[in-house]
């Protein structure tokens, strides 16, 4: 595709030769002639001067370069995403129903559903149109899956779980496993509290590899539309996650907590049970959120506190030895002064 045509399709402003032929997308350092690349971060600007790419996508404020053609975008990240969608070497998913799958007689399959080998679909389960199910997925009895979903290998959808449209579940995701609920007995053993209530995953949600979303004993666990969840995340029973939320890898959210819309959590965060995280809250990596956070807040640390306070406190942490020494110095100087001034 010619660069000028690409500029049009990506809604970018072209700087340089529009007749250059673009055949692929590559990282700044590995790009070859014919590749389009992307300046992801200002810290890679030096690599731009050495790139072999034929064109680069940059933001509105980035300096121009005569090393290669420039596609200037108001939102370079989105332009890059669209360029990848044009050029990506995708592997076409399998078509049709594999004869080595086990599908209950009363399961309902929409048009053009693909089911891979060793897929099990339980009684009364339904799968919407064009949904792709990779090998070794298990869909429990009564589960309902919408249209245009992708379920990668080894996904487990437990009985009666409801999944919306255009949902992507990566390999090994478990949805609807039993919540961790036990009642302690007088003899110290723990009696299982049956966990059979609902789990609902709304439209356009994506869930990363080996993440687990538990079901509660009563009520529901719900992930609302457009939320993206990274690998190895744990969502406990009865949690509600809002719309357009981003949860990075290895984050864990304890039971019955409510996470508002547009929340961002970085990697390895933990959130206490029965708290409320307001709309638009940001949580720094590795934080332990023990209490509710008001909408728009930005918290970090263990326990999580206001991010700016945490940064200041963290900076002081490494100065604690010098602070202790200053206190000791002051005690000595003061004692000398007190001697000088005489007894009280």
């Amino acid at each position, binding site marked *: 595709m010619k660069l000028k045509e690409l500029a049009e399709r990506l809604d970018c402003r072209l700087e340089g030769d529009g007749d250059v032929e673009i055949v692929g997308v590559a*990282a700044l350092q*590995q790009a070859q002639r014919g590749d389009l690349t*992307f300046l992801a*971060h200002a810290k890679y600007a030096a690599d731009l001067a050495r790139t072999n790419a034929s064109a680069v996508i940059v933001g509105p404020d980035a300096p121009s370069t005569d090393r290669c053609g420039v596609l200037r975008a108001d*939102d370079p*990240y*989105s332009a*890059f*995403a669209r360029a*990848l*969608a044009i050029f*990506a*070497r*995708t*592997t076409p998913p399998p078509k049709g129903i*594999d004869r080595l799958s086990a599908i209950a007689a009363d399961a309902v399959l929409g048009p053009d559903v693909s089911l891979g*080998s*060793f897929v099990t679909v339980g009684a009364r389960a339904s799968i919407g149109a064009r949904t792709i199910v990779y*090998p*070794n997925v298990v869909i429990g009895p009564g589960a309902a899956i919408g249209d245009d979903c992708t379920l*990668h*290998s*080894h996904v487990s959808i437990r009985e009666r779980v409801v999944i919306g449209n255009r949902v992507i579940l*990566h*390999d*090994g995701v478990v949805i609807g496993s039993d919540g961790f609920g036990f009642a302690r007995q007088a003899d110290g053993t723990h009696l299982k509290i049956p966990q059979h209530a609902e789990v609902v995953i709304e439209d*356009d949600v994506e869930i*990363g*590899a*080996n993440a687990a979303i538990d079901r509660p004993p009563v009520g529901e666990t719900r992930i609302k539309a*457009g939320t*993206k969840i*990274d*690998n*190895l995340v744990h969502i406990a029973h009865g949690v509600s996650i809002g719309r*357009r939320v*981003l949860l*990075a*890898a*290895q984050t864990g959210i304890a039971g019955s907590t409510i996470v508002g819309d547009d929340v961002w959590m970085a*990697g*390895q965060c933990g959130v206490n049970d029965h708290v409320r995280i307001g709309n638009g809250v940001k949580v720094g*990596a*590795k934080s332990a959120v023990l209490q509710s956070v008001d909408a728009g807040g930005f918290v970090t640390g*263990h326990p999580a506190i206001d991010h700016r306070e945490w940064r200041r406190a963290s900076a002081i*942490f*490494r*100065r*604690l*030895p010098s*602070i*202790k020494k200053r*206190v000791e110095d*002051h*005690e000595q100087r*003061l004692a000398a*002064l*007190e001697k000088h*001034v005489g007894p*009280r």
Partner: protein
Amino acid sequence: MNLRELAERLNCRLEEQDVDGRHRGDVEIVRVAGIDQACPGDLTFISNSKYRSRLSATQASAVILGPPSPDDPPAPCAILRSDDPYVAFALAVRLFARPAAPSRGIDRLSAIAADVTIGADPSIGPFVTIGAGASIGARVIIYPSVVIGPGVRIGDDCLLHAGVSIREGVILGHRITVLDGAVIGSDGFGFAKQPDGTHIKIPQHADVVIEDDVEIGANTAIDRPAVGETRIHAGTKIDNLVQIGHGVTVGSRALLAAQVGIAGSTVVEDDVMLGGQVGVTGHVRIGKGVMASAKTGITGNVEAGTLVSGYPSLPNREWRKSQVLVRHLPDLKKRVAELEQRIAELEEKLAECRTPDR
């Protein structure tokens, strides 16, 4: 196997002592066991001095010990001396281990695309799926329910445990072990935020390469990037439930303990050791030989050879000096309050001195 032969095979020196008129080299060893559980006929070992005191009570027939030390308690059994007792122990376990050998051949309940190439002497279990155009090396063992995507290349002598997912186009070298449920080549977590607050997916279709002699733990996930590659260099060992973000490079011989997470595009150089639950932010470089203690949160580049701890991470010595004071913070606060009080009293006195005739 008698002890004399074992000593030779483990490259240990057997301490020559006769007991009850029987030469110790003739003692028959049948198993390797921990110091507390060992029975007669067992070989045990001490590599950590913490366990030295347990030696006198062991029932083992022989023990692997490091070079002689004056602190050594008397051993109630034969002694195999080694410069590196832990390595000798590892070799001993390998000698006596009887791993459950999977049946040879290709199970008839597997689904293998017609154009897949498979090397000599495979062992492929039931419910294994191998996609079109994949190639599998010689002597590879694939346990049940493994899914190998189209175009995947796997080298010789690899071992894939049950329920592993190797996504399309991933490349694995030789002698790689992947434990149950691990996922290699899942989509990186990359989205572009739109003006309406929604996120469009940035397609993640680039390469993942796992080099020779790597081990990957149970339910670990290694993501693929949008462009470039994610690469784990030779000899690196990764524990369970580790997250490797898209575009990450992990060097050779690195050790990543359980639940470590490394965010996108970070470079971890050779011989790095990360303790359990360590987190590393994206786009940083962890220098050769860096060590991070458990639960460290690394937020920037770390220079080669340093030991770091804490969150945000600090050089370990500095972190320890501050960390030891954390428990004294209430006392420190009290001392500051006392200082303030004494200064106030002093100021009062000085004021009195300055106005004597009021």
